[in-house]
């Protein structure tokens, strides 16, 4: 009986082998004898339910986008959907110790966040500047929550953990007690710092983070030690012990040369720099009445440019590129104990095996880059772009519809005759380029009005963990292509899928929205699946029975 059962099972198993598994020569011979097999329709398409998109651009209820004058500070209009807080801009220009109480309150800054003092050279602007920076952790771990604490999404549903230098803001780190979302001012990247050539700058790092940190002024003219003989270079094994949790240190600089520089933490920099502790540091040329926007939160549009920039350019943008390795950035979410986090990040994590997964421009990935990191222009303008590559890989920055001119490399002006105009510019890690974007429609500098992308042409950077469009894609948008709410009036496909978490979780067929018949999800081949299940069941039974049949019964 058992043998017959075994034979039956073998027969069923043979019959359930899917035809596509038969050797190709057998199938060819079969077709030669009997012709092709009859038509079997392929599985029907199954439509994946579209997720509800979040709004791409909310109404500007606060009036932040408008050009305005606050405490005597003329603040340029910011045409993008989300604009910087103009009260914070005014406080950064006047100094948080000089603005009115109402403006300071509206900015949310502490009174000592950016203090401005005496006009040492008598040219009408302050030359003593004291900047205080804290370290914030966003999307970090929690001993209670199942999700990240103090959340900041770089794109729908994407919340890698990171650290950033931040100005001092009073009150809560979240929007309110009921919300886990970080207040808008706490974000990536660390703010761009702007100071004037020759100013006496003091930067105090108030380290409220659970790890030691420093500030290294990369490319900024600074002495190795300060006037008291204390280390001033921010490097733990050459100039100073790092600033421990709860402690503070002041760095002093009086830069003699202007240019676009960089600042970053130099404690375990292969981890701390890549976690986001880095920012642009711009030294502006000395001019009379040069009231600078000392901090540009989130980088991007400079709403109160320097006198030197106003003389030569119509607009100015800070563009900060940073890539993130999720293998690193999730480590602060997986445990809460600082000892375990330190072990994980500084002993277990190996950057030599690292691969970047997320790519940000000014702290956002597509489509959020279109909310606040567009380069908005008009025809016949000269636009200054200050670009830094904060990642660990080179960037080949390509501008659609335009060729840009490299005017400065690492803060040093290129001779006029040696300036290069091109549509792909390369940035090594930590390198800065000052670019002139000339929107004259002459077929060389620009091809006319439109919505012209700019992005790294190393194609992985235009994805978010391999899903495109993503990464740090943004665009040069002409004002006549910008809607009244600051959102570009695109001509292509619907952006709704891009504003869903499901799209970036790889759950939505990428062209379903506009080619539903062609590219929806293919259905399941039920018969194929059934054959596999039967085959597996038969093989299992055959194994058990076969062992029993062949086994010699005990005497």
């Amino acid at each position: 009986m058992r043998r017959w059962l075994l034979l039956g099972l073998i027969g069923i198993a043979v019959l359930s082998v899917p035809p596509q598994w038969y050797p190709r020569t057998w199938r060819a011979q079969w077709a030669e004898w009997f012709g092709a097999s009859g038509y079997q329709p392929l599985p029907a398409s199954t439509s994946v339910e579209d997720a509800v998109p979040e709004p791409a651009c909310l109404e500007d209820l606060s009036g932040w986008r408008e050009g305005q004058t606050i405490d005597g500070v003329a603040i340029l209009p910011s045409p993008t959907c989300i604009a910087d807080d103009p009260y914070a801009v005014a406080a950064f220009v006047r100094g948080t110790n000089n603005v009115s109480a109402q403006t300071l309150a509206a900015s949310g800054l502490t009174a000592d966040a950016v203090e401005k003092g005496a006009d040492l050279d008598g040219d009408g602007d302050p030359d003593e500047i004291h900047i205080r920076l804290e370290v914030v952790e966003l999307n970090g771990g929690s001993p209670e929550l199942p999700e990240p604490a103090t959340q900041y999404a770089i794109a729908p549903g994407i919340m890698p953990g990171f650290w950033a230098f931040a100005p001092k803001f009073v009150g809560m780190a979240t929007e309110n007690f009921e919300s886990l979302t970080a207040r808008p001012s706490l974000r990536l990247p660390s703010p761009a710092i702007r100071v004037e050539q020759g100013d006496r700058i003091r930067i105090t790092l108030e380290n409220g983070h659970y790890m030691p940190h420093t500030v290294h002024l990369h490319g900024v003219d600074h002495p190795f030690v300060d006037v008291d003989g204390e280390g001033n270079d921010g490097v733990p094994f050459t100039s100073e012990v790092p600033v421990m949790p709860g402690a503070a240190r002041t760095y002093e600089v009086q830069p003699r040369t202007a240019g676009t520089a960089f600042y970053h933490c130099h404690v375990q920099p292969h981890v701390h720099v890549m976690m986001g502790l880095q920012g642009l540091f711009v030294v502006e040329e000395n001019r009379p009445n040069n009231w600078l926007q000392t901090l540009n939160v989130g980088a991007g549009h400079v709403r109160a440019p320097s006198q030197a920039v106003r003389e030569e350019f119509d607009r100015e943008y800070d563009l900060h590129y940073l890539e993130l390795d999720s293998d690193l950035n999730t480590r602060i979410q997986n445990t809460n104990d600082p000892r375990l986090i330190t072990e994980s990040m500084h002993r277990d994590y190996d950057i030599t095996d690292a691969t970047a997964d997320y790519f940000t421009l000014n702290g956002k990935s597509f489509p959020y880059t279109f909310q606040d990191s567009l380069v908005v222009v008009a025809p016949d303008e000269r636009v200054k772009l200050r670009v830094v590559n904060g990642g660990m890989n080179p960037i080949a920055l390509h501008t659609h519809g335009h060729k840009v001119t490299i005017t400065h490399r690492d803060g040093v002006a290129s001779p006029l005759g040696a300036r290069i105009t091109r549509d792909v510019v390369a940035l090594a890690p930590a390198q800065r380029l000052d670019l002139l974007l000339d929107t004259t429609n002459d077929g060389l500098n620009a091809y006319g009005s439109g919505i012209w992308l700019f992005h790294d042409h190393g194609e992985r950077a235009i994805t978010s963990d391999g899903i495109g469009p993503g990464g740090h894609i943004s665009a040069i948008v002409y004002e006549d292509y910008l809607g009244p709410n600051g959102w570009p009036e695109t001509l292509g496909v619907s952006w709704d899928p891009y504003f869903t978490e499901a799209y970036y979780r790889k759950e939505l067929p990428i062209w379903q929205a506009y080619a539903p018949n062609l590219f929806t999800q293919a259905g399941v081949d039920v018969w194929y699946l059934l054959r596999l299940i039967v085959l597996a069941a038969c093989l299992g039974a055959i194994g058990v029975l076969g062992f029993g049949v062949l086994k010699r019964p005990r005497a």
Partner: protein
Amino acid sequence: MIGGALFALATATALAQHDMTQHHGMVMNANAEMLPRDCESISTEHEFTVHAGAEYAAGFPGTTFGYSQREFLVEPCSRVTVTFVNDDAVRHQWMVHGLPRYLYPGGMFHLEANGGSNQTGSFIVPSDDRTYLVHCDLTQHMEKGMKAQLVVGRGSGDLWAIPGVSRAFNRDGYLPSAAGLLVILAAGVGGALAFALRRIV
């Protein structure tokens, strides 16, 4: 991102309406006089001096920051005066949540002190037995130890993850790297013992 404008307006309004001493920090929503609706009078006066800083994490492994006192027991309808002393060189906060919103905008009483400074403020608690969250809301300060509870009357149960009071809801694993091998070894030993016992029995 979303709601940023409303957030700023709310912050501005809140800051403009309430007591502030911004050069060294702030006191928000101080209320030493107005009684909650359910209180007829002040029942008791409580005064606490709370120190904050990295040194107060010393007794609690796996934390970085802490308060000198992590539990505050008060009677219903009592007036609580807190002097918050920041012993660090960075900002810290002593923030209570869940108070009646008609008296405390956002349901919050908030002391914030710059490094090396202190702030004092008072508030009056309602009559119901309830446990209120007290914490520092700078990023990761609560998560890394700066958390306490204000227990009014009998309270409403301990909150999670308060150093010295309650355990973490998400407790990290603290196992040696050879833990897997030890578990397998233990299973083998257990099996061998069972086999041996079977022979004996």
